[in-house]
């Protein structure tokens, strides 16, 4: 085999130091296949070299955590022998190059991470960031990404029960597509990616290997340049039909006791999956690539090891169980091949037709993968924006109408109607609420799921922003009546080699950590996507949080829509005297035209206290509707509750300035009740501030005697923005 050069290494994204380290570890200059393996394992995407140091600081434990980060997905105990398994993953760069396929294969990848662990996926979620609506390519991205997510999830028959979408010019050249999947399994039937048992067969199942996405994971770690187009041939096409069969076949096989370890082939395909399995089990692997099912003739070992063809899995079986497994895969019409076995050498040996193409010590690559403590610079603090600096004095109903007619506050129905959110027959809260809720099949229990992020806050103050994103996810779960249990996170940032970007990253992680600790809301899995930049312009720091909570009795689920006329509307966690927090708020952006200012500070103990109060009221069945207050503030929240239910609200004439209705102060909820006495008594005894805002009635949203808007009008404004936007030609 010919030795590679320093130049080759550079082309593979390895620095000079990394090249030297590689040669030193191997004891010679590696050949091309070996270089490919190194570069795949050591790139940012697989090695987490810039982020590892900080990820280690995240809180990852709680009594209910069965498996934290480090596996394909995290696992929590949801009682009665049931477990919930979930993770989030980004597919940002592929989606920019080909939105439909990029988003589709992103969904496919996260589904595999979950069913690899023995779980049946029960819900999908996503978090999307697009450029400014005016940008000429935005519609193209929205269309492609949404139909790609739907195309894959719908075909698989897994409901997409929610998500979040935001538009901002910072994503013009770098959209974000994060997909989350939640599955359920029995706690004693969870599968891990660990290889063990010298001599045991290594088995390949699923789709055939083609030349798809070779260098995809290297691409995922590279900044975009103008010639992003030239990277196109690496696009992978998703085949949800095959994935559905792979999933059914794997779950069927897992009912037997023949599987020792299993790992999906995701980024860097066979390389990453075999390395990880071997490393976790402290064993060696010998692969015979001539046995591997390929789609195209004459594929080289280099190509086979690096291919990112989708819908493939690698397993280690108990000896002698190959035939049993083979029969299952045959029934589902899938490829099945024994492609190697485990050895006691601790080495990855790649052979094809008798010739050796790679011979590397697994632990050398895994343990010595570079880890950087990149320099970082704290983001400068922004000033607080106080109400006396506001110029606009229009009444709150005027502002409400304007704000609902924007990309970021309008209804996302256009999106979620393209997702089958009901298949599997367990979805009890559709998209459009505070969290998606799916019943645990054939039980009374339900899981609540949310994805959240506030990049504007994180940009202005990464630490407070980091706290806020976790708090908001927590609040959304509380608002539907679930006990928040754990989160997964997707850290989307720019180039970590720039100090200010690394500063954002570190700040957000510290904020997330603090919030997770105070809220008892550990991180059990996640993903990091760096280098989200185009031409040196970074995206906003976007740490997406996917939260999961448990509801023991799904009949106690809360929803945001008003339930009846003549009920009382309260603000929980706030008062007339609160100074509205306007820095980085939508009110400031949409009404004052300013994007600036310190984001709302998050008092995490208050957050916890208020949330627990809401949950206790729900236990006592004192609440009829509940919605957390987030972007846009109180009046936006009330309007959403009214629009949902087609029941109006008469709000009292309060002694407040117009901007009070739109402040983004944290730890607040809007609720309705018809038992004011009990509610107020409990609030007082729990030391919770509340404010009676008004009553549900009629077909208008009205403040005092004079200011009002009909429900029809706000519904039209809020409901039609997206359809109108998407039907205009680009």
């Amino acid at each position, binding site marked *: 085999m010919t030795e590679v050069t320093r130049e080759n290494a550079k082309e593979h994204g390895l620095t000079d130091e990394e090249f030297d380290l590689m040669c030193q570890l191997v004891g010679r200059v590696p050949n091309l296949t070996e270089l490919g393996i190194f570069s795949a394992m050591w790139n940012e995407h697989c090695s987490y070299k810039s982020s590892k140091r900080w990820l280690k600081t995240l809180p990852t434990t709680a009594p209910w955590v069965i498996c934290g980060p480090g596996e394909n997905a995290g696992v929590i105990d949801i009682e009665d022998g049931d477990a919930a398994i979930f993770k989030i993953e980004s597919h940002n760069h592929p989606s920019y190059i080909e939105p439909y396929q990029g988003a589709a294969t992103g969904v496919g990848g996260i589904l595999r991470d979950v069913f690899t662990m023995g779980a049946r996926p029960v819900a999908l979620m996503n978090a999307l960031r697009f450029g400014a609506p005016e940008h000429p390519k935005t519609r193209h991205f929205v269309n492609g990404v949404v139909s790609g997510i*739907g195309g894959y999830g719908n075909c698989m*028959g897994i409901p997409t029960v929610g998500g979040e979408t935001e538009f901002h010019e910072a994503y013009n050249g770098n959209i974000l597509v994060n997909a989350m999947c939640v599955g359920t399994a029995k706690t004693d039937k969870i599968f891990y990616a660990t290889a063990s048992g010298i001599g045991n067969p290594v088995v390949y199942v699923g789709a055939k290997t083609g030349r798809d996405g070779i260098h995809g994971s290297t691409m995922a770690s590279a900044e975009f340049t103008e010639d992003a187009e030239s990277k196109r041939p690496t696009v992978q096409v998703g085949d949800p039909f095959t994935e559905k069969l792979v999933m059914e076949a794997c779950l069927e096989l897992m009912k037997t006791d023949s599987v020792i370890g299993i790992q999906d082939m995701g980024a860097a395909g066979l390389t990453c999956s075999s390395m990880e399995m071997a490393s976790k089990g402290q064993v060696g692997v010998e692969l015979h690539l001539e046995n591997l099912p390929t789609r195209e003739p004459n594929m080289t070992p280099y190509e086979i090891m690096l291919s990112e063809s989708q819908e493939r899995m690698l397993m280690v079986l108990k000896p002698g169980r190959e035939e049993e497994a083979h029969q299952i895969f045959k029934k589902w019409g899938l490829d099945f091949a024994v492609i190697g076995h485990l050895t006691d050498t601790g080495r990855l040996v790649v052979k094809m037709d008798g010739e050796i193409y790679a011979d590397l010590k697994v632990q050398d690559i895994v343990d010595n993968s570079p880890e950087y403590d990149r320099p970082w610079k704290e983001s400068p603090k922004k000033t607080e924006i106080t109400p006396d600096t506001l110029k606009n004095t229009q009444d709150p109903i005027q502002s409400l109408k304007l704000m609902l007619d924007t990309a970021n506050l309008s209804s996302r129905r256009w999106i979620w*109607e393209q*997702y089958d959110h*009901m298949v*599997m*027959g367990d979805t009890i809260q559709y998209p459009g609420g505070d969290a998606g809720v799916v019943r645990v099949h054939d039980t009374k229990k339900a899981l609540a799921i949310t994805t959240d992020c506030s990049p504007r806050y994180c940009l202005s103050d990464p630490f407070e922003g980091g706290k806020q994103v976790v708090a908001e996810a927590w609040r959304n779960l509380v608002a539907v009546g679930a006990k928040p249990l754990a989160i997964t996170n997707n850290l989307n940032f720019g180039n970590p080699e720039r100090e200010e970007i690394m500063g954002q990253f570190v700040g957000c992680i510290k904020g997330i950590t603090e919030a997770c600790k105070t809220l008892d809301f550990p991180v059990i899995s996640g993903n990091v996507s760096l280098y989200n930049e185009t031409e040196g312009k970074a995206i906003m720091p976007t740490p997406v949080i996917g939260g999961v909570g448990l509801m023991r009795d799904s009949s106690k689920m809360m929803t945001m829509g008003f339930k009846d006329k003549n009920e009382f509307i309260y603000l929980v966690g706030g008062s007339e005297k609160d100074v509205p927090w306007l820095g980085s708020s939508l009110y400031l952006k949409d009404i004052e035209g300013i994007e600036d200012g310190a984001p709302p500070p998050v008092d995490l103990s208050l957050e916890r206290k208020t949330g627990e109060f809401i949950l206790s009221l729900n236990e006592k069945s004192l609440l009829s509707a509940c919605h957390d207050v987030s972007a846009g503030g109180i009046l936006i929240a009330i309007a959403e509750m009214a629009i949902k239910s087609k029941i109006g609200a008469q709000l009292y004439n309060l002694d407040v300035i117009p901007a009070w209705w739109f402040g983004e102060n944290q730890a607040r909820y809007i609720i309705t009740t018809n038992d004011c006495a009990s509610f107020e008594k409990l609030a007082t005894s729990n030391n919770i501030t509340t404010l009676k805002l008004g009553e549900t009635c009629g077909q208008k949203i009205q403040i005092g005697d004079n200011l009002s808007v009909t429900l029809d009008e706000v519904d039209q404004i809020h409901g039609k923005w997206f359809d109108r936007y998407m039907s205009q030609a680009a």
Partner: protein
Amino acid sequence: MKSAVIVFPGSNCDRDAYVAIRDVLGSEPEMAWHGDSSLEKKDLIIVPGGFSYGDYLRCGSMAANSPLMKEVIKQANEGTKIIGICNGFQILTETGLLPGTLMRNKGLKFICRQIHMRVENNTTSFTRKYADKQVIQVPVAHNEGNYVVEDDVLKSLQDNDQVAFRYCDESGTVNDDTNPNGATDNIAGVLNKNKNILALMPHPERALSKLFGSDDGRGVFESLMG
């Protein structure tokens, strides 16, 4: 009642259909694999929703050629009651058991939402629990639900009372605005001439309890109990 749900590669509402039969009819259906060549005689067969064969080529076209479908066709001709839901509807038209075909939604987008439909024939074994012209709420979730038939076939469907359901609004109005997918004559569900086969795009098996948004779909299954 002896029943079966046919499972194709890519079916994904097979479990939903199973639950509907179990919970409403009170008996467990056999989950019959498409690749088998025999099926014990049944009173009811459900061809469920999903993406059989990935919906590639034409929805339902490959499933219609599955070995077990020969048996389904045979039993259908012998009077066994058949329900095709969503992809099941597409499969049944591809086998020729029902006229017409399902093309892409007029908006070219997948639509998942609650819709209303009007019961147009309440004298069949699938609809007798409903009142005549009753408006019911059930969800749709499809990309190819645009039912297309030639004019003369449409006329014969109308003449033989073979239209089971039409898309409408809450108050029962049937027109273009209440047609989610462009289906000819707002047809949401059709029957064969003998009225022992019902196929519909909306999902009655997803509307069995108010917890899931509506329980109006129960009528289809309750009607079968006689």
